[in-house]
């Protein structure tokens, strides 16, 4: 039902611990300066050249229909809703000369005139690095065949920032790791990740206090290894982390199942009955319920948790209910939506 993004509607390998996978390819058109130094008419040219390909016809088989929208044409609330559903970056939302190409099922989004002329992104549910790379690469081949991306024999794909040079690829995985956080092991894991050519950061929060126990892990190096090697490395580390998380979760349950159940059911109770919920509280309650699903304490189709994570964001929420709301209005609407959707999900499994 959500028109927001495919990644929120389904589950994938290693869910619910792995929430989503993203592969992003940074590309630039030949013959034009990078976005940071180009003139407005050159930015318009970038959009024109990509529009010609996207709307021009011969779309490769397997890719859904795509539409291009310029940032200036979109109302602020829509732009911010796209940011909240991870389809565009906050940076792009603020660029007058920016544009986005969205696939119909929203697993593909192409940002234009962000830091690079073209940033192709593929977002999927669960751990699907190979598939996300395949799809992003397909869009890459399609655009390149008609518009030629800047490429250097030694340096590979040329990007505005040298941290993206080579493959131009940033592959990242969003993880839910409550047991590692509760047992204070997460710091150690995150430090180790840095030594493996990967980057880790907490999502929806500051520093290590990641709200909702959510973390994002991505490759740091882009030059000197092939896309497949980089992805294999990331996949191996993610699988290890999830293995650790599941082991710790089993230990926690063995030690104190009652307390874990209490935590999950309290959060469920709050969510089913609260009348006013702010965004942060909703995130942390949803995290506890996700924990309950991982630990097999409660059963429900858990893609609804991912969908709600996005649906309850302030601007997505307003777009979803079709009206501007003040903070209290949003908190009330959020509580209502969570209540309805969770009741529906719980009923569907007969819990």
């Amino acid at each position, binding site marked *: 039902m959500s028109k927001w993004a495919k990644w929120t509607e389904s589950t994938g390998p290693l869910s619910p611990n792995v929430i989503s996978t993203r592969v992003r390819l940074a590309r630039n058109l030949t013959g034009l300066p*990078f976005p940071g130094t180009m003139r407005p008419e050159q930015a318009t040219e970038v959009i024109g050249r990509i529009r010609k390909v996207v709307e021009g016809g011969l779309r490769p088989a397997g890719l859904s229909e795509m539409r291009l929208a310029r940032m200036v044409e979109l109302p602020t609330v829509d732009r911010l809703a796209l940011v909240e559903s991870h389809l565009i970056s906050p940076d792009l939302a603020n660029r007058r000369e920016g544009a986005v190409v969205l696939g119909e099922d929203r697993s593909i989004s192409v940002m234009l005139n962000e830091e690079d002329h073209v940033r192709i992104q593929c977002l999927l549910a669960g751990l699907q690095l190979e598939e996300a790379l395949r799809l992003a690469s397909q869009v890459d081949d399609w655009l390149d065949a008609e518009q030629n991306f800047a*490429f*250097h024999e030694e*340096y590979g794909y040329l990007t505005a920032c040298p941290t993206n*040079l080579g493959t131009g690829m940033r592959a990242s995985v969003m993880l839910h790791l409550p047991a590692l956080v509760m047992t204070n092991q997460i710091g150690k894991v995150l430090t180790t990740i840095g030594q493996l050519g990967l980057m880790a950061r907490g999502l929806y929060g500051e520093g290590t206090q990641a709200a909702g126990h959510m973390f994002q892990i991505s490759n740091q190096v882009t*030059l000197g*290894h092939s896309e497949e090697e980089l992805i294999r490395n990331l996949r191996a580390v993610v699988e290890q982390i999830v293995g650790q998380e599941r082991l710790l979760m089993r230990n926690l349950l063995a030690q104190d199942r009652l307390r874990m159940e209490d935590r999950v059911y309290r959060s469920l109770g709050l969510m089913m009955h609260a009348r006013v919920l702010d965004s942060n509280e909703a995130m942390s309650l949803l995290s506890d319920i996700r924990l309950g699903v991982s630990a097999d304490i409660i059963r429900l189709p858990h893609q609804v948790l991912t969908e709600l994570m996005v649906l309850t964001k302030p601007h997505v929420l307003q777009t979803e209910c079709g009206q501007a709301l003040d903070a209290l209005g949003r908190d009330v609407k959020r509580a209502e939506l969570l209540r309805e959707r969770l009741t529906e999900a719980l009923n569907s499994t007969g819990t």
Partner: protein
Amino acid sequence: MLCEQCKSRQATVHVKQVINGDSTEKNLCEQCARQTGEMDFLSLVGDVNINSLLASFMNLEQAAAPSRHKGDACHTCGADYRRFADSGRLGCADCYQALSKQLAPLLKRIHGSLVHSGKAPRGRSAEIQRKRQLGQLKQELKDAVGHEQYERAVELRDRIRRLETEAGGQ
């Protein structure tokens, strides 16, 4: 120890200043240290951002680079290394070639490598594939000779020749 200024929070910043031989010590909490402006470096700690970190790396790189590089500028967009060091972004695709000398140590530090080995645009991938294969075979030939494996060396030499003729023929 409590902060000397607000006397309520823990002092976590200890400053020792020596001016003309007179030394003074201050023990402040982070908030007060920020407010007094004593600790300009704290603004860096509070908001570590990859661009500023990168830019500071590059400034170091620039300071270490021989001065003759300072004049190099990209013939296409006019950007020079200083502009890159300030913004952390290159001006255009040609900058990589124009500033390659100054960029090389930085790229090596970021990626540990200077040579792309991943995907190439479809139209050019056959040619690039051949070049990569050629490079690899030449390395193997060198190793074979080094290990006195002459039969293998002859075999490798023939493969290299074949590849080179193919390339020349196109």
